[in-house]
């Protein structure tokens, strides 16, 4: 399958197969006017399958969110057809307003102006906990 190479924009590569749509939704890429391509189940030598997102514009990205959903993703910035920057996603130490606490007894449920902040408590198992009630993120 061929998708045209982009001239100016961003390619998020090495997204775990199946996570591309969720990343698309959480990055709010549906709100963009430019072309956005999601390639599902592309061939990957390393993992067998992967998802890829191509964005035909250089937009600000929430790298914490990418790191949370796709910690091994590569973010390629392309200008005039040339790869000018390659960044590795990393598992962020804290997540602010990326996910919400599901604990009905958490203070964030009644005081909804509070930031939803999660801290990485177990990098090996990728476990984040709400800083307020310490409930594990799903």
């Amino acid at each position, binding site marked *: 399958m061929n998708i045209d190479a982009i001239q100016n924009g961003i390619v998020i590569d090495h997204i775990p197969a199946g996570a591309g749509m969720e990343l698309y939704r959480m990055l709010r890429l549906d709100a963009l006017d430019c072309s956005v391509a999601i390639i599902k189940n592309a061939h990957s030598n390393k993992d067998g399958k992967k998802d890829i997102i191509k964005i035909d514009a250089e937009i600000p990205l929430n790298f914490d969110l990418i790191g949370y959903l796709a910690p091994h993703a590569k973010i390629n910035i392309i200008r005039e057809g040339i790869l000018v920057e390659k960044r590795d996603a990393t598992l962020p130490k804290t997540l602010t307003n990326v996910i919400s606490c599901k604990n009905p007894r958490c203070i964030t449920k009644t*005081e909804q102006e509070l930031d939803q902040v999660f801290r990485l408590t177990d990098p090996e198992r990728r476990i984040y906990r709400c800083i307020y009630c310490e409930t594990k993120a799903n």
Partner: protein
Amino acid sequence: MRCLIDILDLSVSELDELIRTACDIIRDPDKYADRCKRKKLATLFYEPSTRTRLSFEAAMLELGGSVIGFSEATSSSAAKGESVADTAKVISCYADIIAMRHPKEGSALVAANNATIPVINAGDGGHCHPTQTLADLLTIYREKGRFDHLTVGICGDLKFGRTVHSLINALSRYEDVRFVLISPEELKLPSYVKTEAIKKKGLEYLQTTSLEEAMPMLDILYMTRIQQERFADMDEYLRLKDSYVLTPEKLKTAKEDMCILHPLPRVNEISVKVDQDPRACYFKQVLNGKYMRMALILKLLEEAGK
């Protein structure tokens, strides 16, 4: 601003320092009678807790300070919809230190993030209750003289019991502490507490449903109440509430110097007949709680003044 939200906010050396201060208060209370003169403690209790609130108030009064506050949400601005953050900012203008109890988990951290004076978590829902753990620790220290090389049995609701999680977190920082976790299957200690507090430190633990089986090996027996307020399903509460009842008969196989603790209030999990047993330390624990709160108030006010 230095606050106490979780028992792990205190290092082992700070805990030792608090215990030293508390023991000195016990030895010579007059020395401390004016140490908080002209200082005000605000007790912000959004849910009733007679014992904890009165313990904080007694602690501040014995230090020569005074107390302002409320004892239920309906008599505070929360009834008008004021946020915890705003209340913390407002109270910072009136008082020198806050002790707060609130039914929502994480509320104490929100208060601490917004107050300009020290905040002590006096219980935030099912999350943390660090000053109860301070009371537990002083009692263990006064009865046993150490925190290491102990076999600690914890019995009852290990799933929802916030005092249990805090005590395990605090004791797992000491050498050769062995935990015996006694609970019904449904109320077992959550795996993250086991992993993060016990296994990571390489400490030994044993899980059992039998209090009788565990009894002979224990240096400390920490009993807890099966808390009705933590259950959404009343049938499940009724089924589990009488799982463990400590009686003089069950204590026959216990060590002579075993120490029985309970964060109180009890319902029926310790028979009143046990109260006469010299191993029953739960009322001493209440008094120790006041001394540790005195030591804590002193420490936080002293650090705030620097």
